[in-house]
């Protein structure tokens, strides 16, 4: 092949590759996702990706979805803007740390719809959404309180931000409601996704006599540590039973699929509006996976608690809530803490055997 025909072939092939990409971009809605971890984390990002696939399944050829994974927060503005520039009409950014970059890009591209998970800054074309994971934490707290033999339960936290702190408090309040003498130990992994660190944190807790372990990080590593020691644990964000069939009592499953499908439909219908959704059991955004490896009475208790929270008759943060220092928190909600108080929570409730890093 002469060099001229080679160049001709290359140019032709490239042109072909591009026209194929450009032709149907006009009709289709392109939906983009930015993930903080790898889709293979089997937890947080994985579960958002399940939601992405649900969009593809629901709308078939009318949509095209894209994701960019493991995006560092300090470097995310460019990745978000790259989605905005490549014809995406709806962009989900799925970690708290993407808040400012998402806001900046949203201001620059007023015709594109943005959705930011777990943040609090909105704009006419930027919605926020999050789930009341702490409702699930209360249920697993009760299970932990019932299942512990040593009387000490453990928690691996990612970062001491309000969402995680509220989860720890809810877990402990649940445990305390069925086991007043229960003790809780906390270890911080300082990462959302670092299986080695998460496993070490889990092992450190097990070494301190913890026999039921919960985690608010993204991988199944702490649960696997519990499985290896013959102790109990919970799945986080996703059903992790296949990683720990004997240890997983249940999992708090983040169900983004319905929300993602609904928001995509809203864009297709032209009814999308900027809003803030904080849904729990009631909206189906938080779901418990089947209760296993526990006696029937514990299972029954967990199911009843789940139903009560769903019905609104039980609030994990019902007043009075007492802080570690013994002061009672002002009750700004209706017989319970207000949403703002939960979303900005930066104190431990009384009885937690740890000091909140601040």
């Amino acid at each position, binding site marked *: 092949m002469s060099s001229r025909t080679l160049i001709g072939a*290359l140019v032709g*092939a*490239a042109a072909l*590759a*591009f026209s194929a*990409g450009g032709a149907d971009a006009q009709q289709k809605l392109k939906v*983009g996702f930015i993930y903080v971890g*790898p889709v293979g984390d089997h937890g947080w990002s994985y579960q958002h990706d399940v939601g992405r696939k649900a969009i593809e399944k629901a709308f078939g050829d009318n949509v095209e979805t*894209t*994701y*960019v*994974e*493991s995006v*560092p*927060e*300090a*470097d995310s*503005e*460019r*990745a978000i*803007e*790259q*989605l905005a*520039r*490549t014809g995406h009409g709806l962009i989900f950014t799925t970690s*708290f*740390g993407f808040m*400012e970059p998402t806001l900046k890009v949203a201001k620059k591209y007023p015709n594109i719809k943005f959705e930011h998970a777990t943040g*609090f800054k909105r704009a006419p074309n930027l919605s926020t959404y999050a789930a009341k994971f702490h409702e699930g934490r209360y249920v697993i707290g009760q299970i932990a309180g019932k299942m512990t033999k040593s009387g000490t339960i453990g928690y691996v936290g990612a*970062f*001491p*931000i*309000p969402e995680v702190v509220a989860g720890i408090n809810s877990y402990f309040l649940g445990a305390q409601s069925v086991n007043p003498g229960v003790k809780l130990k906390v270890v911080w992994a*300082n990462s959302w996704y670092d299986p080695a660190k998460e496993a070490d944190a889990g092992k450190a807790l097990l070494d301190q006599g913890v026999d039921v372990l919960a985690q608010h990080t993204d991988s199944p590593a702490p649960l696997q540590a519990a499985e290896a020691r013959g102790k109990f644990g919970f799945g986080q964000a996703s059903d992790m039973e296949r990683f720990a069939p004997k240890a997983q009592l249940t999992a708090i499953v983040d169900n983004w699929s319905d929300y993602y499908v609904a928001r995509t439909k809203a864009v297709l219908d032209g009814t999308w509006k900027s809003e803030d959704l904080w849904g729990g059991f009631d909206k189906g955004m938080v779901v418990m996976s089947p209760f296993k490896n526990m006696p029937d009475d514990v299972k029954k208790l967990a199911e009843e608690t789940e139903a009560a929270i769903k019905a609104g008759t039980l609030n994990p943060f019902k007043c009075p809530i007492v802080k570690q220092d013994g002061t009672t928190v002002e009750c700004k909600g209706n017989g319970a803490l207000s949403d703002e108080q939960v*979303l*900005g*929570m*930066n104190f431990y409730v009384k009885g937690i055997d740890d000091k909140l*890093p*601040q």
Partner: protein
Amino acid sequence: MRIELSPRASVSPIWRAIAPVLAFVTAFLIAGFVIWLMGRSPIAAFQVYVSQPLSDPWALQEILVKATPLALIAIGLSYCFRANLWNIGAEGQYVIGAVVGSWIALKTHGTDAGAWVLPAMLAAGILGGALYGLIPAFLKTRFGVNEILTSLMLVYIAQLVLDYLVRGPWRDPKGFNFPQSVTFDPAATLPPIFDAGRVHYGAVFAAVAVLVTAVVLGRTLFGYRLRLTGDAPRAARFAGFSAKTTTLAVFAISGGLAGLAGISEVAGQIGQLQPSISPGYGFTAITVAYLGRLNPIGILVAALVVSLTFIGGESAQIMLKLPLDLTQAFQGILLLCVLAADALVSNRVRIVSRGGVR
């Protein structure tokens, strides 16, 4: 049978110049083969990865944005590496520079402090990074402590200091307790060079650093002294050059430039302090320094190439749905090819049969 590398007596300058080009071609051939094995078009991949970013003003600008901190840090590191001193802690010096500089931004926040704020922040950033870089240098000159270990360990300390500050004393009181500082005032923000662009004046600092370094290393006694200390320490001692002063000087320069990169990123790009302000620039810069063969112009080119691979990799994820792992593997292949080409140019390869005289 074994393979032996022996240094060539003389190296042809033509080969020296061609080697990196050949390395690039080889890396693209290997990566193209892998992409072809995955059933994708290598030509389209090359388009998205290289040609497209280079022909799109927006992407070119993003390449500059990303290359800025890499070039600044790598230029600083080249002083250390030329003198055979191993500063692995640029990431920490970057963070401390950002912290010290931001201190001024936060102290003057909400006041009518004038135009002095930004220059003061930059000066404080340089000073903070330099002083932090001097710690391992001092430990080495005074107590003979290995600088590789101390500079690396100081990275973790710097990151935890930043973490403590944004969760504690410097936390935005209106930020729902999330770990981040207030957003800097306009007076404390490094402006973009072009209106509505993202390239900030850090790029100018990087260009100045490259030019000054080219002059210093090539034309001054200090530059000669560095090279001599690195290549022939004994000769340097006979010439009366103190290894101690050299060590302190190069660590201060290197730390100062990393600190400048840190405060430029925070003031020019991120606009506030948050727990993570670098996607590992301080470590990537080590690669950049060596890809550029410790030559200032080479480092500038290497910084641009490395940031091209980041941005091209992101495009490949978005446009071609290629996995992140592949784009990261490509960066590794590229580095290996460049180093291998270098080794082959300056060494002769001989295959020695077994039983040969040793």
